């Protein structure tokens, strides 16, 4: 595969080599800008089916060691280092009916995936070995219910948010036996409508993103309603389809708004502390984000779904 050197290349080399060899070093030692705009410190992903690329990612979770797990609409779960380097990945056992929209890391490090369209929860280890699975439709639940998110409390009980007509949170024993249903019936006059995400705080109360009512509901582990706040709107303290909720290391809450294209931090009494992001494709902007989580060093990883990327923010 012989290749003749380009004439132009020779000219350029000769001229530059003759005149400029002494200047090259001085001009190359420039520093990179420390941060991308709007507090974003890194962006990774991109559209694709290869390792490290996404096809409409819809949920993220982080393990205490710092690794991230992202599930996308191709039905793949990928593990990344906190720096966004691809570590490993696997595909859900079945994907024809639909793909998962929620996953969580249990205190013991196991990965719980809400396999939405197969009405079940699948448990993996951090390398993708399937450890367990239980069907959420088999007992105590309507057949057509779609699990959206799963979380595990300190006692090992598993909580699954479900929607499609009989929207509620179901509680399962550590071995996958149905225990109770939470959040059924009207809450301030309106039943839950698409509880899209759940998360436990340090006090072991459950925070629910009630997406189609555009509000946040706080429940005790027994189902007692502790707080309700929010409502549809763009002003702080209101939401447009909150699709994810995360308790922050500061014991406040962070809400990811799918319709509002932003993150919102709130105190536990519903007071908006900060709003971040707007709609768009540029770095620092979001396009239909489905989820966000806190990772190592207190950095926030946002699933920028329609941009098929993860943005890392240092709040």
């Amino acid at each position, binding site marked *: 595969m012989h*290749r*003749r050197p380009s004439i132009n290349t020779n000219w*350029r080399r000769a001229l530059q080599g003759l*005149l400029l060899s002494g200047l090259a070093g001085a*001009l190359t030692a420039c520093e990179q800008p420390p941060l991308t705009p709007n507090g974003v410190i890194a962006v990774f992903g991109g559209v694709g*089916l290869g390792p490290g690329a996404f096809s409409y990612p819809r949920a993220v979770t982080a393990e205490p060691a710092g690794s991230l797990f992202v599930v996308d609409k191709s039905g793949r779960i990928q593990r990344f280092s906190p720096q966004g380097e691809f570590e490993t990945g696997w595909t859900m056992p079945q994907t024809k009916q639909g793909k998962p929209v929620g996953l969580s890391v249990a205190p013991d490090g196991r990965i719980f995936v809400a396999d939405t*369209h197969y009405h079940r929860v699948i448990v993996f280890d951090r390398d993708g070995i399937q450890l367990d699975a239980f069907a959420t439709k088999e007992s105590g639940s309507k057949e057509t219910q779609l699990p959206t998110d799963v979380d595990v409390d300190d006692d090992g009980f598993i909580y699954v948010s479900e929607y499609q007509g009989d929207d509620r949170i179901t509680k399962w024993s550590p071995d996958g036996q149905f225990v109770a249903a939470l959040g059924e019936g009207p809450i301030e006059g309106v039943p839950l*409508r698409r509880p899209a995400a759940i998360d436990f705080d340090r006090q072991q109360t459950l925070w629910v993103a009630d*997406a189609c009512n555009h509000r946040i509901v706080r429940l005790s582990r027994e189902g007692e309603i502790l707080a309700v706040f929010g409502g549809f709107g*763009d002003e702080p303290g209101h939401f447009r389809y909150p699709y994810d909720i995360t308790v922050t290391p500061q014991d406040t809450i962070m809400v990811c708004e799918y319709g509002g294209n932003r993150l919102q931090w709130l105190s536990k009494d519903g007071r908006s502390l900060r709003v971040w992001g707007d709609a768009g494709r540029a770095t620092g902007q979001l396009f239909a984000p489905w989820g966000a989580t806190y990772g190592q060093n207190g950095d926030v990883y946002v699933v920028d779904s329609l941009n098929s990327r993860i943005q890392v923010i240092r709040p």
Partner: protein
Amino acid sequence: MSLLALALPFSFDRPMWLWLGLLIPLLILASLRSLAGLEFMRRTMALFIRSMLVLLVACCLARVEHVQRNDDLTVIYLMDRSHSVQELQNRQEAFVHQASDNIPDEDRVGLIDFARDAFLQQLPTRGGYYISPGRLPAMPNTDRTNVAAGMRLAMAMFPHDTAKRIVLMSDGNDNMGDLLAEARRARADGIPVDVVPLDYQHRNEIYFDRLIAPTHAEPGEQVAIRMVINSQRPASGTIILQHNGRLVAIPDRQARVELRPGDNTFYMKLSVDDPGSHVFEATFRPDDESMDATARNNTGSTFTFVAGTSHALLITADPDFDAAFVDALRSENVKVAVKTTDQLGEFGLLQMMNYATIILSNVPAAALTDKQQEELALYVKDMGSGLIMLGGDEGYGAGGWIGSPVEEVMPVSFEIKHKRVIPRGALALIIHSCEIARGNFWGKEMAKKSVDTISSQDYIGVLAYSWSPGGENWEVPLDLNTNKAAVKNKIDKMQIGDMPDFGTTMQMAYRGLVSGKGRDAAQKHVIILSDGDASPPLPRLISQYKKAKITVSTIAIGWGGHVMASTMQSISRATGGKFYQARNPRQLPQIFTKESKVVRRPLIVDEPFQPQLLHSYSEILAGIDPTSDALPPLGGMIMTSPKQNPNVIVPIIRATDDGEDPVLAHWQYELGKTVAFTSGYWPVWGRQWTQWPKFAKLWAQIVRWTMRQDAPANFDTYTKIDGNSGRIVIDALDKDASYLNLLQLRTSVIGPDNQPVPVEFIQTGPGHYEAQVPIDKAGQYLANVRAIDASGRSMGTLRTGLSAPFSPEYRDLMPNEALLRQVVDETDGRWLDMPAKDADVFSHDLPPTEARRPAWEWVLAWLLLPMFLLDVAVRRLASWLAFSIAVELVVLVFLLIGLDIIHTNILGVFGAFLLAELIGWMIRFRYIGPLFDYMTHTVTALGRAGERSTASLDKLKSKKDEVRSDLDGEKDRTGKVSTGEETLDPLGPIPLANAKQRFDVGDAKASKPSADLADALGGAAPNRPPAKPDRPPAQEDQGDDQETTSRLLRAKRRAKRKEDNGS
């Protein structure tokens, strides 16, 4: 010369002008004298610059062009993915991967795969081939090999600034497009096509080569069916024959056949009784399936037209409703067949052609597929047949026919165009289709279908979840459907997002229909298209819908994947709408047509009226006397508007206070005739009509008027399919068996895609006419040929057609190496073999590409003008400093030009600046050195002069003392005191020159710096000979003056003489 041309980044559009360069030696000779006054270096530079000026002017006139040469290479692989080589895809992918390993950095690789169509899978990209094996998307329509399409796409995809190469991987069994024409284009573009032949051989293959039957037959005739089956090896099997879709019982001895290698021909005779088209289909089933590589090519089909009397076909949803109508027609000897809408099935154009006219009685549009509707329109327009539409609650606009192809051929528009106040309908669409493959495409298409189906007097709005800002919106605000194009344009721009819940959009639709623009609509309807995984609405909202009598129909889409049907089912059930589960997109148009017409119920006039006869001269009303034959009243009708066309005749109307509605209208549209009767629905609306004595006569007359006039020309026809083209041959003889020459044979062939293709018959012999038909799809091709003789008289029509049961792709048994070799020869390509390691796909043996830009303007502005200035500077700038700056500027401009050509960076510019400075300073050193010398020399000289002055003063002082002592002695002798002047007097007056010389130390060297300084700073003629110290300056000046004066005088005299001679 060519090497030089390759090395230089320039070329010339008109190189003849470069001969001007020959002027340079002449110019040098001429300039030697005129520049004789300059010192050697300046003269040399001036000559050089003048030569350059001539050269640059020559370049400008020769239209110098900047040529950017690039020997980077782009290789585009063309991968054949047609059926014949589908098993070789892995080998092709492996070849691409191996051949693209370790390609040079700047080279690019692209990949296009093709079968019937070509697709770009990888844009020409640096670094290699990135698609992992097995990850190429599925290829649609593998039933054809269209290498030409792949070549065309490749040539369009090449970057313009690299060398180009196509690597074609194929078996060469090209059966669509013109490969060799594309190869010639590639050659013209300098693109070689290397060929990697895909080798295979199907040793066990049987295919049905031809099924032949006569094109025309008489009723009751026994037609001979000839079957030609090709086999590679001896085999046995069974022949199965179908006639018009029904299995024909064949005796075993005929059905069981033994095949020898090669073509095997079998005959059979079948009786054809009914007039119309008879389709024969024969299939060979081998006993041992391993003897046959593919079963797709085991069927042959053909058809025969049997002449007969004209029939009409009545299509109805309920035959009982039309019983009286059919009886009336039959009583008038009109042959009518009746089909219900359920019996239509595969009712296509070929079957339609069995009837001379078709009557649609209260048939909704959704009963016919889009394809059948198109064929019905072609049946009228191109085949010259008739169509009658009778009304009813499912007819015309109320039946969803608005915007259909059938509306185009009817004499009335199904819209209410005039300003009539009629109850309106309102339709809100909720589209949530983004989660399905091509879901949004179908969502938009169906929304547009609804826009077409409903009237422009109705309201329509489209709701969807839009991404930014994330939320539900009226993507098309609920408003009148007046400007359908604008509404469809808005639909096309929709960005349909993933809707979280039905509640919000349903709430918005409710508000729009109850309190928004749709509030005055008499009929309100909502259609939801979704995969069902959005959150269901609250029961409270469903109750509101029920109360407001808004129906909601839901259409679940998922194409067999996951669909959450339960929520959608419950919504439609609760609101009185319908639920549909669409398993494939093809079902959607009918569903949308059916659902959209719900809002068109206001078009039905369900009240008795007295129809009025308007045009008794209408040919279809012959025999109906408006004075004596009062038309019976009708019980209802569908509102339409007559088309604004002079051919449209509306003989019967319904007159009301605010306008007239057509009841009966007719016209001829292209070759066919159509009639619209907007009433009908006989037991309900037209009972009195069916009892009217003239009912039968009137309708028999109408039906006969529309019937296709089959006057078969008595010609022989023969058809044959060969690869991707078909041939129709007509032998025209009159009844005396004389050839009919110079006939005009006009037809359009309607293929499986319902696109009429005009074909041209060429007379190739006495009475012998031939036409070529492109065959690019499997299916039936029909033609209705009209024969017109030389005097313009119609000689009747002739039905013919071809049947292509399977693509030629399925009969390829081995590669077509000859064609591939031809491509290689045509394009100067190479024959590559499969192991990719030996294939040097990226060899740089192609000429580099050249991108040319005109540069003469630039040369003029940036080189020629500075050169002029430099020329002046060299001769006129006395100062070396100024001269050096001028040179420096010119050098800088030259270098920057050079750098611009090679596209350097800022470092290059900086380097050019440095180099120019270096040259400038080298010139300036010539000036600075002598200046330095002068200054140092002067200071030394002054120092020495000072010392000598001191010595002189001392000397003078001692002399003075000496004189004084002499004077004192003399004074003492004379007794007088003298002044100082007087003291000096004895020395006499001192001349100025001498005064200067007073301080002259008498050192000859001291005068030299002075001469150099003048030379450096002031000498416009620095070459003047050094002043001779012994020659008085005044004399020298005088001499020069005299010499100049005498020269001038001589020149003047010469000029005078010349002038005198001249005169």
